[in-house]
């Protein structure tokens, strides 16, 4: 089984040279730490920054320079700043190559729910609905099952949707899966020590298993 850092590490392998990438809050944020050496990637923060750098050194925090998670950050040589309309303009126009975000539920046809639980205080969707509706390539980073032990990969979402038919790939602590255009979770890789049977038990939606399923490998 993978921990959060390993999920992030595995997702980082999906990032290609020359990609502009938007990272959501939570596990996706960790992906930044594992971008393969030798490739050039630019991180977009939807509050209006291209070229997000690491956290500032202590004492160098700038209240005017934050990311979409409201964390103090830095810029990099070649960064640019813009307003929120342009930020979501470039997202809608699919200039961002890859979006990585968390989810509460994903359905076998690629629907995602990640913003609202009925009966609980709703904080809002932020930029998530724009991102999932626009991005050409979306990877979800999440736990395979929720705290109650229920699968988060479902035949159809039970929670209010964030977007429909948009998720292409899922990486969990158990597995890497593609969401097929025709529907269904296609198992691509399993985490070390995790059996296909266990993944089957943990997946409520239609799981497609074809041939031998290799173990996930982390390029270090």
């Amino acid at each position: 089984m993978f921990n959060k850092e390993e999920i992030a590490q595995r997702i980082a392998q999906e990032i290609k040279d020359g990609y502009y990438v938007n990272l959501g809050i939570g596990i996706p944020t960790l992906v930044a730490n594992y971008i393969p050496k030798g490739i050039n990637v630019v991180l977009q923060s939807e509050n209006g920054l291209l070229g997000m750098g690491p956290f500032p050194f202590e004492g160098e925090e700038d209240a005017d320079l934050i990311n979409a998670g409201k964390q103090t950050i830095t810029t990099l040589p070649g960064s640019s700043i813009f307003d929120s309309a342009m930020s979501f303009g470039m997202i809608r126009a699919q200039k961002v190559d890859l979006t990585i975000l968390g989810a509460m539920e994903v359905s076998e046809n690629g629907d995602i729910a990640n913003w609202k639980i009925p009966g609980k205080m709703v904080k809002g969707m932020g930029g998530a609905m724009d991102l999932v509706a626009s991005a050409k390539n979306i990877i979800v980073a999440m736990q395979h099952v929720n705290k109650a032990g229920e699968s988060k990969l479902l035949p159809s979402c039970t929670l209010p949707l964030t977007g429909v038919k948009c998720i292409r790939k899922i990486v969990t602590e158990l597995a890497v899966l593609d969401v097929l255009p025709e529907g269904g979770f296609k198992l691509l890789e399993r985490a070390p020590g995790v059996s296909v049977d266990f993944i089957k038990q943990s997946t409520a939606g239609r799981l497609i298993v074809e041939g031998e399923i290799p173990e996930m490998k982390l390029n270090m």
Partner: protein
Amino acid sequence: MINKVVSGAEEAIRDISDGATLMLGGFGLCGIPENCINALVTKGVKSLTCISNNAGVDDFGIGLMLKQRQVKKMISSYVGENAEFERQLLSGELEVDLIPQGTLATRCLAAGYGMPAIFTPAGVGTEVAEGKEIRNFNGKDYLMEYAFDADFAIVKAWKGDTAGNLIFRSTSRNFNPVMAMAGKITIAEVEELVEAGELDPDYIHTPGIYVHRIFQGKDYKKRIEQRTVRKSEV
């Protein structure tokens, strides 16, 4: 040039009255019009509709107005981090309209650019789409969303000149320029107010035509919501 300078926050907000619709710039606590918010709290104007990406925290930003129950309705994309907000929302004292962040920004842009409506895919197939017109272009569905109609836009810039031209610093730009374009009356508070001619025309973010009142603010707190740092390399 036309001089847009007013004496301060109090004069700038003088004609904002109960029931007004306000846009307030900023993202989280970054780039919020601190001076005008304080003046609105002092003035005690009520039943406001506030269009702002976030709602501040309990003791800062729009949170100060919420605490005094000055806000009737919030139109935002994300309203976490505020216990008093949650209390008012759950008790039904406060209305909240949650809309996608890009839709929020683009409805401001639409107002500033004289476009009555725009199309966005954000929210298609979700509860955000309820009651809205859906239209298919090139095989993809879009929602039609209307331009905002705000009585006042209140923004915070880094520098401004007497002609109302504004420059924003780093990511405190965020919603400020698009809201500055979108208000019937736009009020700008700036950290540094300079004479017309001191700012390079090529690097103005918001042209003065969009700004009706400008003043130099004071005592900026510029609070940090999530202070994240790494250890200094020695």
